[in-house]
């Protein structure tokens, strides 16, 4: 029987799914063991038990000075920045995407510009951003917006253009103005795509968030990683990495669920 036709039974499938995770865990444990055998103080690959201890401490113990559990505050601050940035970028890309995709005048004037913008490396412009927007939340959010909005806008505009011309014509024969076409024909049809764009750009958004928090911040997941990176406190870093991965996974899952709920008319293709 061909390999492509061989399907694992249910228990085997579960085993297979767990396999790579277990393999990584074992590889890590061995690597850690070996390094710790040479130098018991080695911090690069702390023992799994150490990480677990650290994780429990981070999640439950308050910092002495402020009496706050930093991890939760870091998470709150970072999620606020991340979600604000992505939400603004999404709103911007939606509006611009519809305008560019629908109005020839807008398309002419903005599509090249957005294409060029999407190629600019925003990290290099960080100093200018900090001058213009200050060191507070704004500049971090703006960095996320600048980093994700152009690509999203291009894609949204493309999707608007891909809406069958027939529908736009049909709406006109029903007396729809440009505004009505934008609101009632185009908008609802590209919303599912907006969500999948948000899902795609969350990865980049995390990157920018971590980069921005590394420069000036007193709270945040990226800030904490940056801070402890100096001391190679890998137990803390790994806890934060796993936590960020989990958060990213949850966000992605929520967006997918939302999309499936909200847009039942678009059965497939998300």
């Amino acid at each position, binding site marked *: 029987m061909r390999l492509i036709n061989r399907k694992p039974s249910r228990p085997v499938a579960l085993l297979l799914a767990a396999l790579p995770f277990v393999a990584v865990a074992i590889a890590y444990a061995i690597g850690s063991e070996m390094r710790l055998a040479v130098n018991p103080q080695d911090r690069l690959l702390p023992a799994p038990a150490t990480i677990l201890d650290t994780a429990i401490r981070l999640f439950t113990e308050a910092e002495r000075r402020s009496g706050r559990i930093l991890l939760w505050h870091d998470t709150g601050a970072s999620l606020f920045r991340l979600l604000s940035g992505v939400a603004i970028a999404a709103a911007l890309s939606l509006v611009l995407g519809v305008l560019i995709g629908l109005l020839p005048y807008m398309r002419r004037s903005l599509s090249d510009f957005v294409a060029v913008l999407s190629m600019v490396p925003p990290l290099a412009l960080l100093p200018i951003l900090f001058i213009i927007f200050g060191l507070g939340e704004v500049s971090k959010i703006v960095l996320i917006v600048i980093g994700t909005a152009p690509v999203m806008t291009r894609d949204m505009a493309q999707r608007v253009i891909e809406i*069958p011309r027939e529908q736009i*014509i*049909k*709406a006109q024969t*029903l007396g729809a103005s440009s*505004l*009505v076409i934008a609101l*009632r024909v185009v908008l*609802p049809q590209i919303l599912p795509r907006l969500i999948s764009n948000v899902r795609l750009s969350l990865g980049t958004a995390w990157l920018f968030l971590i980069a921005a928090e590394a420069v000036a911040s007193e709270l945040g997941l990226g800030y904490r990683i940056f801070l402890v990176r100096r001391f190679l406190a890998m137990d803390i870093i790994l806890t934060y990495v796993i936590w960020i991965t989990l958060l990213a996974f949850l966000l992605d899952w929520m967006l997918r669920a939302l999309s499936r709920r909200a847009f039942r008319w678009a059965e497939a293709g998300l």
Partner: protein
Amino acid sequence: MSFVSVRDVWQSYGGRPILERVNLSVAEGEFISIVGASGCGKSTFLRLLLAEEQPTRGVISVAGDMPAVEPDRARGVVFQRYSVFPHLSVRDNIIAAESFGTRLGWLWGARLRAARTRADETLGRIGLDHVAGHYPAALSGGMQQRLAIGQALTARPRILLLDEPFGALDPGTRVQMHDFLSDLRAQSPMTIFMVTHDLAEGFKLGDRVLVFDKPRWDPHDPGAYGATITYDFDARHGGIPYHHLREKIHEPTHA
């Protein structure tokens, strides 16, 4: 009296002529079938009637109005595909024909309720009342096209333009759609232009069958000349074709 009049219309894209010297006069209530080879310009002609495009030369007017510059409520249209809105339920697709004409595209309160009642009537007439709450994706191809036609008619257009409306349906459904369209027409007379690939369909449904073809042909440059109406059959008597040659080639007549 000519309800739709097409006078000396030419259309070319990027210098390449597609239609040349098209003249046509249609009375109110006539059903015009349009046939012709693939790529000869049938859809282009429909686009001109729709005012989606402006002819390079010539004038098209409906009901004596000024030539339109863009599609409007005077023109209903149904394409082979994508003629309904996939994100609206079947009922909302019908209501759209009323609500889209408002400023923001939404109806509220009493007007919405009234529109909903009318929509349900329409759905009853086109036999879709049992799927009023479904989305188009859940409908068969034939039901989708019926919905598209019902939607177009709800806007009460002066002319209805159909571009191969049944081209994607299987034969059985097609026959049902013919009956459906004939019934609708019997209830409320309309001026209809229908492009079709199927000659039999054209004769079965149409009062007149127009054939688009290139009257001139340059073997070294197939794209040198455009198409025009080369035959204009009278198809009223049960589709038994007795035809009169419409115009002498190279000598346009003004209808």
